[in-house]
């Protein structure tokens, strides 16, 4: 297998994972969105859910032979054109550091940057929503500056509060409710991302964008 080929692996008997080759980028993600739309029309597919430059394909019932499905995926990927989803932009005020950003020191230690530099870099871009996942309403964002990338924590923490703005590897995101996480929390914001009574229940969708606005820095 060369680096340019996508990779397919099993998630037990209930799903498979399709991973696009290459570096994480928006063009690839747009092709993933396109592939998801296609795969969801196949009868053996329950859901096709984009991740970050990858796609989870869950089965209505596990196929007896996998090769048919994996070959169709490979062909559909070859044919997939980038799907530009032009979404809305949401502005989120963030208080960086302090009690709401307990792992800022770890990001400082790893990146060798100052708190001010990390905040400036983190609050600069418009982050495209690549995918939803992790927990109800949570968004995976693309476009984080690699200078502030920080590895996930060695041991995940059991309860990260909702509104936590955090960095995990080369990604950043905002937790939508309290729960476990392996990411490094650098700040906090307040925003309601999920309401089960709405249709769709999640506030943001792939293709939307988030801007972090500095509401304060606690050093």
């Amino acid at each position, binding site marked *: 297998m060369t680096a340019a080929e996508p990779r397919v692996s099993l*998630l*037990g008997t*209930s799903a498979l994972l399709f*991973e696009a080759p290459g570096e994480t980028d928006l063009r690839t993600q747009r092709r993933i969105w396109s592939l998801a739309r296609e795969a969801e029309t196949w009868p053996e597919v329950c859901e096709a859910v984009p991740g970050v430059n990858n796609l989870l394909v869950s089965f209505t019932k596990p196929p007896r032979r*996998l090769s048919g499905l994996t070959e169709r995926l490979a062909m559909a990927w070859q044919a997939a054109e980038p799907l530009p989803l032009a979404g809305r932009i949401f502005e989120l005020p963030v208080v960086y550091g302090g009690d709401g950003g307990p792992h800022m020191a770890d990001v400082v230690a790893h990146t060798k940057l100052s708190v001010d530099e990390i905040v400036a870099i983190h609050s600069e871009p418009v982050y495209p929503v690549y995918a939803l*996942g992790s*927990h109800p309403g949570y968004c995976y964002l693309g476009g984080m500056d690699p200078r502030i990338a920080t590895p996930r924590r060695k041991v*995940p923490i059991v309860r990260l509060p909702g509104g936590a703005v955090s960095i995990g590897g080369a990604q950043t995101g905002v937790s939508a409710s309290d729960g476990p996480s*392996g990411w490094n929390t650098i700040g906090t914001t307040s925003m309601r991302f999920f309401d089960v009574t709405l249709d769709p229940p999640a506030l943001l969708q792939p293709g939307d964008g988030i801007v972090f606005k500095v509401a304060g820095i606690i050093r």
Partner: protein
Amino acid sequence: MIEILSQTALATVQDIGRFGALRWGVGTAGAMDRMALVCGNLLLGNEEGAAAIEAQVFPFELRFDADCAFALTGADCAATLDGVPLPPWSAAKTRSGAVLRLGLPVSGKWRGARAYLCVAGGIDVPIALGSRSTQLRGAIGGLEGRALKQGDRLPLVPSIAGSPGPLEIGLVPPALAMPLEVDGCAAVRVLPAAEYDCFTQASRDALWSASWKITPQSDRYGFRLAGPNLEPLAPMEMRSHGIVPGVIQVPHGGQPIVQMCDAQPSGGYPKIGTVIEADLWRLGQAPIGSSVRFIETDWDGALAAGDETRNWLAEVRRLLDLYRTRSLGR
């Protein structure tokens, strides 16, 4: 109505699970032991996935405020109805006002961790995103999206089938009918996952040969296991991707975590394997402090395991139908 009498923790309303909401970040939730849920519903002539109460902290006590039929499956908790012992894995009728008490899970040949109370018709809570299952994170489904507490009152779905028919019948628990053990230790079958080959040979061997202890930091979200450290050949940072219950993640610390029913639907830690869907109920019944073993399987082996449980359930369904038909004809 059912009223919860005991000061309880971690008991929730669960059905077969919530499917089709991964796109909004909502996982499946659902009964940790689906076999127990389905069997309880079969005993009552319910829809197989009807909502039930899943109890995991004991003693657990409740009162029926209506005449109804119910079934108890899952862990054998030496249940009593108004003080009269009830056999495990069986259905019974009750009068309004009767008190059901579940004690500590009985140790013996098979000791479970979670008990299921199914009622004729099923527990009636609002359907959220296609399911009545409680998803604690995000407070979705169940009773107000939370665990049950003392004084809660749960309505029952009016039983469409009318009387479930004769009830003096029980089942052999699937853990006894289809046992799976290695060296006397409960076992589950595992399919290697994407990063399996990225772990050292010693770690891969240890996955299959070690007994993995279920630590107290284990719950419906995931089972954190203790055993030999699983070491990658080189550090890995994955891009976030969809995962499913059963996925065995290995965080950088080296101690694996098996994702369970309330697992988040995506993650980024390396995956060494996945407990197959057909064996998740076995793991769902493994008590904290006990140990489990992993058995390597392949796609065909995993499908065969699924066929085995499906066939067993089909036989249960057939025998129950036969029993009801004969009893009615008597």
